[in-house]
């Protein structure tokens, strides 16, 4: 062995110095490359061998907990127990070792421990021999201690202590480096745990999943054995276990709700602080009783707080007695904070979802209501409206049938039913509701009252309506139809054979429909009333059926603009004058509806009166114009073509007050022309003159009188126009007049794609091919 060469007396030779340098170099290389413990181990061995010491050991200082840890590496003959005991001595923090550790003295050297007395007792000293403690210095602070013991018989010189310094320095740097790395790792671990938990917490939209994930993750990244979340109940006074992970305590009390202040979690909740409890098994407080029974030694509880509001508590427990570092406590507190935010988010999400659901439901209702409203106003006719209302009510209540009753002087009368079979419809229409039963029903379902849900046909006041049982109506919704606070009818929606409730929103929706319905019905009734009147008048304006003329055929058609469901102001008249001639009138009164219809009637009979008086069409229009200016609504204008035909000769005289020029298809010349306008529209002012023109209709000639509903028929922005009508008439002129007018109407309606906005009146007068000549006087 080389070591034999190093006798104590030769320790200061040049050779020794050379070895020492070599050793330092090796240590430096090793220290920069290896992990801490092998480095220190190597260092200890090398120093002991190189400097021929008995014992070398390295202790580290854990500043976090202010204590000496170790030995972390040792080389020598001493028993490990002895070294540890030494460490315990060191930990007491007093005496020369502590002074070295704190940097109060540069080193400690004792060549006669037995005499010193100041050195703590222990295996090292018992054995005797010199002993030294040197600080391991990092760059800024002392990170550990190097203990060396010399041969029992020898002494350690100051010089030898100096020789140790480079090694102590080397070991100090290694320890510091290792500490630094460990700290970094710990911090990275802490951050990554927090990040993992954050990520996990934000990836859940359901509360149970979220809480489970939090418990699982915390268990995973910490040394805890049990994690649990308790949430505050609505009363703000009770905590209830929601989720736990790790241990499954068999104690039923663990799972029961408890009040604020009770148990460790309850205390954390009450105090709103992170509370760490250690050494529970030695604790005897009531709060920790349950934790003790579960077997926990350490428990940490963090309140879940969001903007000052307590949501619950996050708890963790360990079966070991754990000293939690600040960071570990922070971890729990951070997770608690994050969890609180996540819980709030999920709850917000839940609330938003609920509101959206509610919103969607409302929107659905509105859509239904809107659809029904549109259907109701889509038609003005009473019957169509009633059908739309009945259909809407069944839709709103998701039932299948609806029956509407109207209230009039004769009582409650079946009006219209929807969704039933033809047989059931007949049965409904045949219903005769006794006055007394109707009166009871109406009192109960008065206009101001909300809809009534009938839960049984025996329920008052429905008991008197025996037919309900017969029809198998077990439950129904009854709705009053009221206009201006007056009950005008009742609606019943039902589904026979089914006993069902009507949810509040359906009742609300149906009530909204019924409210609208009553008004819509009233408007339709008023409209129908006016239309009936106007139609009656209108019918009276049409020439009497079967006006037969010698030598001529007539064709006529009148179609009011159905789309507007209005009675228009077009009218025509064909009548015989006392002198045997035939008067033809085609006119268009500006305006629609009843007022126009009434004026029309006046104008028509005024003209008849003047026509009998005066043979000249211009004179008749002159008079009519003055009459209209005098008696008729000044805002009304009337265009009129008035002609007088002698059927024997075909001689026609006419005057035209601004009316669309009648068309004349001339058979002999094979073309179609338009007659003149011989004066302005009637009603403009009294001092205008009309002029008469004459034209002789020859056999086969065709005269077409029309109103502007024909020429103004539109497709997009394009008008049908007179030129098209002329061309069509030229084509059709060979046919019979009734066929001609229907053909023209069909063609024009097809042009307008079925959508004619104005009335269409057509009157065709065709001279027969062969004429009967009048008997010569």
């Amino acid at each position, binding site marked *: 062995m080389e070591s034999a060469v190093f006798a104590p007396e030769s320790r200061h030779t040049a050779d020794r110095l050379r070895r020492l340098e070599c050793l330092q170099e090796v240590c430096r290389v090793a220290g920069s490359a290896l992990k801490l413990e092998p480095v220190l181990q190597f260092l200890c061995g090398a120093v002991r061998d190189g400097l021929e010491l008995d014992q070398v050991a390295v202790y580290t200082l854990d500043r976090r907990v202010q204590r000496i840890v170790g030995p972390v590496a040792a080389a020598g003959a001493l028993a490990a127990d002895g070294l540890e005991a030494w460490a315990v001595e060191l930990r007491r923090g007093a005496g020369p070792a502590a002074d070295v550790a704190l940097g109060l003295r540069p080193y400690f050297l004792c060549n006669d421990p037995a005499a010193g007395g100041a050195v703590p007792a222990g295996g090292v000293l018992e054995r005797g021999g010199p002993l030294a403690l040197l600080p391991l210095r990092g760059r800024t602070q002392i990170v550990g201690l190097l203990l060396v013991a010399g041969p029992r018989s020898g002494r350690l010189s100051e010089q030898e202590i100096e020789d140790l310094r480079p090694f102590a320095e080397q070991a100090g740097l290694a320890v510091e480096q290792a500490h630094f790395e460990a700290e970094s790792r710990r911090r990275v671990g802490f951050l990554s745990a927090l990040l993992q938990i954050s990520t996990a917490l934000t990836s859940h939209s359901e509360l149970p999943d979220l809480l489970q994930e939090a418990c699982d993750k915390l268990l995973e990244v910490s040394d805890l054995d049990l994690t649990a979340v308790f949430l505050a109940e609505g009363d703000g006074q009770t905590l209830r276990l929601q989720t736990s992970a790790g241990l499954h305590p068999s104690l039923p009390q663990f799972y029961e709700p408890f009040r604020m202040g009770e148990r460790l979690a309850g205390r954390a909740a009450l105090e709103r602080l992170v509370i760490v409890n250690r050494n529970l098994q030695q604790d005897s407080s009531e709060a920790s009783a349950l934790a003790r029974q579960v077997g926990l030694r350490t428990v940490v509880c963090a309140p879940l707080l969001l903007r000052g509001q307590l949501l619950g508590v996050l708890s963790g427990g360990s079966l070991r007695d754990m000293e939690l570092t600040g960071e570990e406590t922070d971890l729990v507190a951070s997770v608690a904070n994050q969890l609180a935010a996540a819980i709030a988010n999920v709850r917000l999400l839940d609330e938003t979802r609920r509101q959206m659901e509610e919103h969607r439901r409302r929107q659905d209702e509105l859509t239904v209501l809107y659809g029904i409203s549109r259907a109701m106003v889509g038609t003005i006719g009473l019957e169509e409206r009633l059908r739309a209302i009945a259909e809407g009510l069944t839709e709103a209540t998701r039932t299948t049938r609806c029956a509407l009753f109207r209230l009039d002087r004769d009582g409650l009368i079946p009006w219209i039913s929807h969704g039933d079979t033809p047989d059931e419809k007949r049965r409904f229409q045949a219903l005769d509701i006794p006055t007394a039963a109707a009166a009871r029903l109406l009192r109960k379902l008065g206009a101001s009252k909300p809809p009534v849900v009938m839960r049984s046909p025996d329920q008052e006041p429905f008991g008197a309506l025996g037919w309900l049982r017969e029809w198998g109506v077990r439950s129904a919704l009854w709705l009053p139809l009221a206009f201006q606070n007056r009950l005008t009818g009742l609606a019943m929606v039902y589904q026979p054979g089914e006993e069902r409730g009507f949810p509040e929103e359906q009742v609300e929706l149906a009530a909204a429909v019924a409210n609208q319905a009553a008004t819509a019905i009233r408007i339709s009734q008023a409209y129908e009333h006016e239309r009936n009147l106007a139609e009656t008048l209108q019918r009276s304006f049409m020439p009497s059926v079967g006006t037969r003329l010698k030598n001529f055929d007539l064709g006529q058609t009148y179609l009011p603009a159905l789309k507007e469901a209005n009675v228009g102001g077009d009218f025509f008249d064909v009548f015989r004058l006392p002198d045997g001639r035939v008067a033809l009138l085609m006119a268009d009164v500006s305006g629609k509806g009843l007022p126009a219809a009434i004026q029309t009637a006046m104008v028509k009979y005024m003209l008849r009166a003047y026509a009998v008086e005066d043979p000249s069409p211009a004179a008749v229009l002159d008079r009519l114009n003055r009459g209209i200016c005098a008696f008729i609504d000044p805002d009304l204008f009337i265009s009129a073509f008035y002609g007088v035909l002698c059927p024997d000769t075909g001689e026609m005289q006419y005057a035209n007050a601004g009316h669309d*020029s009648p068309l004349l298809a001339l058979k002999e*010349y*094979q*073309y179609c*022309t*338009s007659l*003149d*306008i*011989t*004066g*302005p529209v009637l009603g403009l*002012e009294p*001092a*205008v*003159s009309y*002029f*008469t*023109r004459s034209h002789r209709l020859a056999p086969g000639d065709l005269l077409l009188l029309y109103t502007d509903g024909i020429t103004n028929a539109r497709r997009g922005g394009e008008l049908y126009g007179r*030129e098209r009508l*002329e061309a069509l008439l030229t084509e059709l002129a060979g046919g019979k007049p009734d066929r001609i007018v229907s053909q023209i109407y069909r063609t024009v309606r097809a042009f307008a794609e079925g959508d004619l906005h104005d009335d269409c009146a057509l009157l065709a007068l065709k001279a027969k091919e062969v004429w009967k000549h009048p008997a010569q006087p």
Partner: protein
Amino acid sequence: METPCATVEITRDGRPRVRLQGDVDFRNAQTVREAVRSAALEAGDPIVLDLRCLTFIDSSGISALVRAARQARDRGRGLRLEGARPHVLYLLSAAGFTRFFQVTEGEVMPAPQHGSDPGARVWQQLSFTIPARTHLVKHIRARVAEMLQSLDPDPQLLDAVNLAVGEAASNAVRHGCREDGNLKVRVRSSTDGHTLVVEINDPGPGFDPEQVRSPELGELREGGMGIYFMRLTMDDVTYSFDEGTTVRLVKRLQEGPARELLLA
């Protein structure tokens, strides 16, 4: 079959007499020349041209009359007009043609005065299309005349309008449409009792009215007379070529400032 526009007869005093009746226009103007020529074969002088039953004569008819008169004169025969309306005489004299004819003094008479204000508002309008066939030109003329007649106008004025409308219509049919019956001539006319406006439209490409020069006095040629006569008889004649060719004729019906009339 239409009644011939000219018939030749021998009067009791042995003179040949050519009687014109109905409308004489570009379609039958040739007949008039034939008739005069055959009348010239008869002895007796002068040849009498009886215009009492003439309802209308256009520039072609006038030209035919002048040609016939010149031929007769070349043969040493005279042509005497009887029953000519002032309007016809006016046209002949305005074109410098009267020297070819013998005219009875008393026949050139001032026209009776007409056209007192009706004292009421008058508004009339016509608007129609008609196939471009030569025999329908008279329909156009007749329609405008009918409207004008309702205002009880001076006969000379009626003749003037008749002539101008006839010229415009026959130009539209013959030149604008080249007598193609599938094409349409569009006629619009309107009057307020003071002014008459007539518009005649054809789908033809049109021409430059400035290039149509007025004939020299006494000059006879085939075309060009129509526009000359229109300008002679109307207060205003304008052409536009926006959609085919449209000639707009304006005639004041009463004394006083002209009123602008817009066609609806």
